């Protein structure tokens, strides 16, 4: 079991690189964690000794296989926790991120699995490390009339089966045709207008498309 600060480092490196393959310069890590270069240096040395990192040319470091596995696990815990805090408990995104950082080190893998299942496999795709959808994605309810968006995910897919059959499924681009003050929406999918109740619209996670 590593000290939580070490886990934060590995997670930060993974977040910076996205896939953990690229070497990362010391300064980048220091910036990401908002700490002094000298402190970073010490910690990285320990992590290299423990075999989580390896030295790369130019004073940079790279995640080893072992380091990558651990970093991914911590990052996943962060995602699940942050989603739980924002989506289920309604904590605001910044605070949720900070609290997830604190909680992610103490929680067991099994509990995270259970939490994830409880939310219906509801955390964002890997790749958007350390951040919950809450920040850069939104539901249909957050869109304006006339917006064109891509459906990212549908919560509670089983009860909203009809959405699929009417052409509203993850990956599909839809247009918001009408949004009433009471949040009922009409979206155009596959050339047809579909009227949707607010609570169903709230379960459709979308990302804006360029």
């Amino acid at each position, binding site marked *: 079991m590593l000290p939580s600060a070490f886990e934060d480092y590995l997670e930060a490196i993974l977040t910076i690189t996205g896939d953990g393959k690229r070497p990362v310069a010391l300064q980048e890590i220091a910036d990401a964690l908002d700490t002094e270069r000298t402190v970073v240096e010490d910690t990285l040395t320990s992590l290299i000794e423990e075999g989580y990192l390896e030295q790369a040319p130019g004073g940079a470091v790279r995640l080893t296989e072992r380091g990558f596995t651990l970093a991914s696990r911590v990052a996943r815990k962060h995602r699940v926790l942050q989603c739980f805090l924002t989506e289920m408990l309604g904590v605001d995104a910044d605070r949720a991120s900070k609290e997830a950082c604190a909680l992610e080190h103490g929680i067991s893998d099994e509990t995270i699995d259970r939490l994830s299942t409880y939310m219906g496999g509801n955390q964002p795709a890997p790749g958007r490390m350390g951040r919950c959808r809450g920040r850069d994605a939104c539901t249909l309810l957050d869109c304006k009339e006339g917006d064109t968006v891509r459906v990212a995910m549908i919560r509670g897919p089983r009860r909203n089966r009809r959405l699929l059959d009417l052409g509203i499924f993850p990956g599909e681009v839809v247009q918001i045709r009408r949004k009433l003050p009471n949040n009922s929406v009409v979206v155009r999918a596959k050339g047809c207008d579909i*009227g949707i109740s607010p609570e169903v619209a709230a379960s459709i996670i979308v990302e804006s498309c360029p």
Partner: protein
Amino acid sequence: MRFALVGNPSVGKSLIFNQLTGLGVEVSNYPGTTVELQRGNTCFQREMIELVDLPGVYSLDGESEEEALVREFLGQREIDAVIVVTNVTRLERNLYLLLQVAEYGLPMVVVLNMVDEAVKQGLEIDTNPLRDLLGVDVILAAAAQGKNIDQIIPAALAATRPATVEIPYDHHIEAAVRSLGKIFGADRVESIQALQGIGDNPELLEAARAIADEIESRHRMTAAQIIAANRHNFAHQIADLMLKEDVMLPRSDLDGFLTRAFPGIPILLGVLVGMLLLVFALGTFLEEMIVELFDVFALEPFHMLGLPPLIDVVGASILLALQAGFGIAFPYVLLFYIFISILEDSGYMTRAAFLADNAMHRLGMHGGAVIPLTLAFGCNVPAIMSVRLLHSRRERIIGSFLATMVPCSARTVVIAGIVAAFVGIGAAFSVYAIVFVLILITGLFLSRVTPGERFGMIMEMVPLRRPDPRLVLKKAWSRLSEFLFIAMPLLLAGSVVLGLLEFFGIMTLFEQIVEPYTMALLGLPGYSATALIFGILRKEMAFETLAILAGTADLGSVLSSLQLYIFAIVTVLFVPCLATITVLLREVGARITLAITAYTVALGLFVGALLFHLLG
């Protein structure tokens, strides 16, 4: 020979069905469900052909009754060919269903309907890609003009080769289909359905669920979502090959008005109120005429016959029941159904449901509930029947409670005949106000206490179009006959029983027993209780009975304004009529029916007593 018509809702399927079969259509209940199937026969080259019009669906893999019915029907394979009707202006979405039907591998004909509208929108259609892909005949048609409809039956007769299609599913799904096929001998359609939790082989479903869970955890999408996405994408590719868009001609967008809060909601209220006023104005006129005709040509001559008293009572009861039935059925119920069918066929009903969604949410239902609640103003019987449009049992229970409380046209007769005539028009409106407030309170209360899951509305806004008058009439007529079928026998039986009770003096005895109670509770004479009981048979009969028992049509001279007012309120709230109780039993079961009946009786007596003690 037996052919079935399949297609999305509102693609012109019924219109084609009607053009192919003409009259002589038989509506039948499919065994085990309450969904109705239309069957019709047509003759082609001396061969008898049976056509089945399956209900409009968006998919074969959904959970609604209609979808289950179509799925089962196709699965039995007892048809010689499927005729898939599609709306060519919404080709891609229609192809999604078409591909699912094609997977069944039945002989098939594709009708690309509404070519006329497609041309107006500047679409150019190439049928070859679809014909090549499925190996079936593809017909371009315009049912509104009857164009190419005559080619459908010959094409269906010629269709002997099964449709072939291989939808390219995700490789995990394909692998699952292969292993399910290997282990259980399930075919492609069965396996795909099992992965979505549909089927009746428990072992297959169990195995499929394990695989589906695995797929879901890998893809972060459910198997159903992946399958749907694959089908939609394939449909998209085909649609791309088939359609060439010239110029998108600007379309006038009526929805710009209809689905906005303003002026959409004022328009909605205008439509509903206008419809009610029109039905009542026309209905009162027609009802008086029918009642008068019955009096002059049936009842009076019958009494003149001088038959023995017992037979005279029974015969008169039967005639009274017929008079009542027809007096309500034609003027109010039929008229009302005609308007409702116009609203449905024009596509306005879906806009109305969309606008009303939020209001209905407060009452614990979704926008679709606007249909039963509007229907209830005409007659509660069809309103309760349409409650099955709502998804969940929770909504159906709330819907039946509220629909039962809506003042139907018969109760309006009571309000108009007693309160408006003898107390005043303002008082008549106050009765409505009291009832609406009670409905609101009941809805708010029920939405909190009724158990069950809440479902939101997901509804296609069907294209707006001019309704076909013949279809409207036909629809209204078939609904009317449904009403007569249920209500008439009850009216007859009930009327005879009450007539006999009256004849043997049991009614008088009853009146004497209840008089002290009705006087104390409601301040009403004993004979008003008899009138209330007649009201169970048929609401406006309460009014007529009261007049007969009071011995004068000028009720104002025997009862005080307050008594009349209280009588009207109690009648309006008190117990749904016998016909309504029968449909309630059929739609929501005995327990809920009992609860609704008990609630309305209690509410009627309570409100009546309250008014009596407050105002008296």
